[in-house]
């Protein structure tokens, strides 16, 4: 049943992805030195989110999969965020 052709990711792409990831790591570390108040955490999480998306898309081949998997992954992330959100219905208003 393995009729589906798997996509081969070239080495070059993988090196480029690593570079992007390293640069993003540099950015988060650098940003901590600056003062943005509450924004700092937001930026850190945003950068981490971008990094995670990159890993998911290239290293984990989501970019090359059929639509089902990316949708499932998105669904799980949304589910998690909703749980977090609902939990804070309690903690934000105690």
């Amino acid at each position, binding site marked *: 049943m393995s009729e589906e052709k798997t996509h081969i990711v070239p080495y070059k792409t993988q090196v480029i992805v690593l570079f992007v990831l390293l640069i993003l790591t540099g950015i988060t570390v650098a940003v901590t030195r600056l003062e943005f108040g509450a924004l700092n955490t937001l930026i850190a999480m945003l950068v981490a989110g971008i990094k995670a998306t990159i890993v998911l898309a290239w290293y984990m081949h989501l970019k090359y999969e059929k639509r089902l998997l990316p949708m499932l992954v998105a669904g799980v992330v949304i589910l998690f965020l*909703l*749980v977090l959100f*609902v939990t804070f219905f*309690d903690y934000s*208003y105690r």
Partner: protein
Amino acid sequence: MESPTKPISYLDYKGEYKGILGWIFSTDHKRVGLLYLYTMLAFFSVGAILGLLMKIQLIAPGYTIMGPQTYNSLFTLHGIIMIFIIVVPGLPAVFGNFFLPIMIGAKDVAFPRINLLSWWLYAVGILIVLTSQFMGDGPPDTGWTFYAPYSFQTATNVLPAVFGAFVMGFSSILTGINFVVTIHRMRAPGMTWFKMPLFPWTLYGTAWIQILATPVIGITLLLIIAERTLGIGFFDPALGGDPILYQHLFWIYSHPAVYIMILPAMGVISEIIPVFSKKTIFGYKAIVLSTMAIAFVGYFVWGHHMFTSGMSGRALFAFSFLTFLVAIPSAIKVFNWVSTMHKGSLDLQTPFYWAVSFLFVFMIGGLTGLVLGSLATNVHLHDTHFVVAHFHFIVFGGTGFAFMGAVHYWFPKMFGRMYDANWANLGWGIFFIGFLALYLPMFYLGIMGMPRRYYDYLPEFHGGNIFSSLGAIVLIAGLMIIFINLVRSARHGTKISEKNPWGGTTLEWQVDTPPTLENFEEIPTITGKPYDYN
């Protein structure tokens, strides 16, 4: 691969191993299903006897047959067995394993070896839980909810119980993964999503909850273990922890888990009703959609177990609102089932008795769930016997009745023998009466204010408790008749080889009785809808 001679049934098949080894090392989904069935029947008997002992204790105030420590560990073990060992794995592991591949036209599940591993993990988990009963410090006495901080202050053996539940969680996850992949990848050619029978559909919804909710209990139990062994302080108020956060985590799993219990039961009912009405199911799509809606919304109502826990008012508001929303899909299903019977040609056989009585007790259980979901009334009823009655009605009444229905419905196919219908019906009748007598008084006790997990109670609650305890004894009689009849019939019942004794339309009724090792000689191609009686 096909042998020229007539293929042999899965029961007679001789593999690498003989005797019992041929079962506990078999990766055949049908044998794994039966392994689960036998394990469960054994532990259901244990759990049920514990329930009976509790009821005898409660027949009069004060010391009757046991002291408070025994009582507390009894309801803990009763809860753990019934929830983690019986109803959560219950229908998916037994009938899902046995019939899911057949119903979608596959030869096995996607990962047969992982399937066997699931059973092994399950068995090991049970053993670990059982060790907690016999080790030095005495059986755990926390209730099946393991609420912090009591669960790490008590001196009893909480660790093995928690760890056993953790291991069983893994088993549940693996079953879930197996089923999702099986349904995605192995449906017979032509079986599009909306041509799939309803039992596989509910298993699909259930499997997703198993995958997405069970890790939550996994990590929660790990945190309890870390808390007890290392004293980290996650939930210990003396170290700054928040006990309410534990309750959040626990119920983030355990509420979806109640839908793990009920969804497959609804699937079974959706199979039985059309077959015995000789009529196509009413509103197939509505039932499918409501299944998925329950699975999704059910994830966000966990807070209704915590209305008096000290949560913020706004959270209470949100959780109560969502709780009411999640009741709607259940209502839709009930209406569709009843409509299926309309203008049918009803064949009153044992499985149908169970299905109809399921409808009745499920309605009572569900509607009292609404009473509990409402803020004002929940404050009064929380942690009283009203809650105990609610969940016995819906867990035992709902899932349990569906389980009984499923056993009788699929019995001829699984064993190639027929049970004695008269005894089965008699058992059902006594069971049903005992059930109502046992649990209806608990609603009254709860409204009067009798708290749950009470070893002893005030004299004013005596009347209801006598009634309820006598009900338990009637129930036991019914259950014994049912069990004995089934066990006897599985070994000596009349042999049948007819493929389709009930006139069902789904694929399991097109294969041999009992099914052959590979289920299908040739994978069928599906053209029509399920439940097509034209």
